[in-house]
C-alpha cells in the first residue's frame, strides 16, 4: 500500500523547491508531484539499493574502505577536497573539519560556477534580498546572461514571473521582464524585451548603463551590439521601477572579464538604490552550492579555494581552486564529494585527476568514480537522508528524508574518515 509523503524538497538546483509531495510504495518513490523535469530524476531515477564501498573496484567492508581512504589522505603531501555542492551543509561542515585536520586544500564547484560572483561581492558588495521579497514586490525583472528556462525550471512560476504576491497581485501583468543575452533562448521568449549583446561585451554594456543612469549620453550609436537608445530606455526603467531585481548567470562569470563583469553589474545595482530599490541575485546552479559558500565562509572566512596547508585558512582562487590545483599537478590525492569533475573539468585537469589516488563519495556512478581507488555509495539528502540546503538566496531549507534505506550519509562517512586520520 502506498503512502503520500510531504513536504518533499528537491535539491537539484538552486531553487530548492520545498513544496513537493511523493508517493512511496515499499520504500520506493513511485511518483512525485510538483517536481520539474530536471529535478524529477533525483527521486524516480535513484536506485536506493544498498551497495558496498569498493577499493580498487573490489567490494570491501565499510571499515576497510575507511581505513584505505584514511591511508591515502594521510600519505598525501597535498590532498585536495572538492565538490560539496550536491551534499548537505552538515556534510560540508565535516569536509571542512577534515581539510583542517589533514592540511588539505578544499574547494567547491563554486570555483567553476559563481566563484567570480564571490570575488565581485568581496570587491564591491552585493545588494541582495530574498526570493520571497522578489515574488511579493518586484515589478522589474532583468535576467542577464542566464537561461532559467533551461536551468531553473520552476523559477518563473515560484519567484520571478508569474506568482501573485503582496504587491504583485496580478502576477505576470505586474512585472516587466528584460533579458540580456548573446542568443535567443526559452527565457527570451518569456520576456517583454530582449537585448542581444555581443559575446564578451557585457562589461561595456554595463558601464554604458551606469553612464546613462547618471544622465550622461555616450557619443556612439551602439554598444556591444545594442543600440544606445534601447539601453537608454532600459536605464530609465531601472531608475523608475518600484523594486527591481537583476538575476545573473554564467554569461557573466564564464566570459573573459569574469568577476569584472559581475562587479560592474553589482555596482550598477548598488547605484540604482539612489533612485529606487534594486537587488541582484546570482542564479546558483547546484542545489546546495550556496550552502558550500556559506559553510566555508563561516568556518574559514572564505567561500571557496581555501588551503589549510599552513595550518590556517588561506584563500587564493587561481592557486587553490581545483582546476588550477590539478592542471599544475599541485595535489597528489583527491577526495571528491557528490560531484563529477572527471566529467565536467577541462580535459587536462580531468586527466591528471584520473592519475592520482582518489576517494569518491557519491550516490551514483560517475566518471570520477570509475577512476577512483575508494568509492563510498552514499545516500541522497532529501531522498533517503535528512539535512539542510541553502537556496540561491541563501535561505536554509530543510531536506526531509522521504524513504528509509540502509545507505549511510556523506556526513557519516566523513566523520569516520576524520576519526581514522587522527
Amino acid at each position, binding site marked *: 500500500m502506498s503512502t503520500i509523503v510531504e513536504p518533499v524538497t528537491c535539491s537539484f538546483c538552486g531553487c530548492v523547491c520545498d513544496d513537493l509531495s511523493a508517493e512511496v510504495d515499499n520504500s520506493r518513490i513511485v511518483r512525485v508531484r510538483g517536481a520539474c523535469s530536471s529535478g524529477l530524476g533525483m527521486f524516480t531515477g535513484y536506485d536506493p539499493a544498498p551497495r558496498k564501498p569498493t577499493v580498487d573496484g573490489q567490494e570491501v567492508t565499510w571499515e576497510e574502505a575507511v581505513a584505505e581512504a584514511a591511508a591515502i589522505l594521510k600519505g598525501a603531501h597535498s590532498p585536495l577536497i572538492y565538490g560539496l555542492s550536491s551534499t548537505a551543509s552538515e556534510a560540508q561542515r565535516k569536509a571542512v573539519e577534515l581539510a583542517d585536520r589533514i592540511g588539505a586544500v578544499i574547494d567547491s564547484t563554486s570555483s*567553476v560556477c559563481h566563484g567570480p560572483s564571490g570575488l565581485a561581492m568581496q570587491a564591491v558588495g552585493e545588494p541582495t534580498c530574498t526570493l520571497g521579497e522578489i515574488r511579493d514586490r518586484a515589478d522589474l525583472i532583468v535576467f542577464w546572461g542566464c537561461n532559467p528556462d533551461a536551468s531553473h525550471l520552476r523559477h518563473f512560476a515560484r519567484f520571478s514571473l508569474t506568482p501573485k504576491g503582496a504587491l504583485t497581485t496580478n502576477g505576470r501583468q505586474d512585472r516587466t521582464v528584460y533579458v540580456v543575452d548573446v542568443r535567443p533562448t526559452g527565457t527570451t521568449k518569456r520576456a517583454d524585451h530582449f537585448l542581444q549583446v555581443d559575446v564578451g561585451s557585457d562589461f561595456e554594456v554595463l558601464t554604458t548603463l551606469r553612464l546613462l543612469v547618471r544622465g550622461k549620453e555616450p557619443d556612439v550609436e551602439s554598444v556591444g551590439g545594442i543600440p544606445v537608445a534601447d539601453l537608454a530606455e532600459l536605464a530609465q526603467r531601472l531608475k523608475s521601477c518600484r523594486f527591481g531585481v537583476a538575476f545573473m548567470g554564467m554569461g557573466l562569470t*564564464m566570459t573573459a572579464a569574469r568577476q569584472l563583469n559581475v562587479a560592474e553589474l553589482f555596482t550598477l545595482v548598488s547605484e540604482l538604490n539612489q533612485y529606487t530599490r534594486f537587488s541582484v541575485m546570482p542564479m546558483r546552479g547546484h542545489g546546495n552550492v550556496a550552502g558550500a559558500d556559506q559553510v566555508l565562509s563561516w568556518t574559514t572566512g572564505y567561500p571557496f579555494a581555501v588551503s589549510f596547508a599552513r595550518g590556517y585558512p588561506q584563500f587564493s582562487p587561481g592557486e587553490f581552486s581545483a582546476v588550477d590545483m590539478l592542471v599544475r599537478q599541485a595535489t597528489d590525492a583527491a577526495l571528491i564529494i557528490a560531484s563529477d569533475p572527471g566529467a*565536467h*573539468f577541462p580535459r587536462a585537469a580531468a586527466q591528471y585527476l584520473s592519475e592520482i589516488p582518489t576517494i569518491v563519495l557519491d550516490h551514483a556512478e560517475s566518471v570520477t568514480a570509475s577512476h577512483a581507488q575508494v568509492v563510498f555509495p552514499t545516500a541522497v539528502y532529501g531522498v533517503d537522508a535528512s539535512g539542510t540546503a541553502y537556496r540561491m538566496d541563501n535561505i536554509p531549507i530543510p531536506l526531509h528524508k522521504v524513504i528509509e534505506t540502509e545507505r549511510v550519509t556523506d556526513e557519516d562517512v566523513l566523520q569516520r574518515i576524520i576519526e581514522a586520520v587522527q
Partner: protein
Amino acid sequence: MGERFTLITGRTRKQAIGLHKGKASPEYREATSYVEMSPDDMQRLGLVDGALVQVHSVAGSARLTARTGTVPSGLVFVPMGTEINALIPAETGGTGMPPFKGLEVDVSRDDGGGETL
C-alpha cells in the same frame, strides 16, 4: 582548417534529464554531443542537420553533430557535458574559472564519414 567561431557552452533541459540516467546513457550522450549553429553558418559550411563536424580549439578537438539553432551567425553553442571538455583550456586567469564561454574555435565539416552520434 575550418571557419572561426566563438563557442559558448550551457545547460539544456535534455542535458539535465540525461544526467539522471547516467553519463554513459544514450540520452545523455545525445543531449551533449551536438553543436548548434545559425542557419546561415550551416548553409555556408554546407551542413545539414545531423552532419558531423570537427570542432578545434587551442586545447583539443571534438567530433560533434551539427544542428540548426537560434544562435546568431558566428556563435556556436554546445551543451555542457563530457564531450565539450576536450575543447576547454584549463587556464583560469587567476580565478579558478576556465573559459567555458567566449572561446575561439574552428569548425569544419567532417568528411571522414562515420555514423552520427
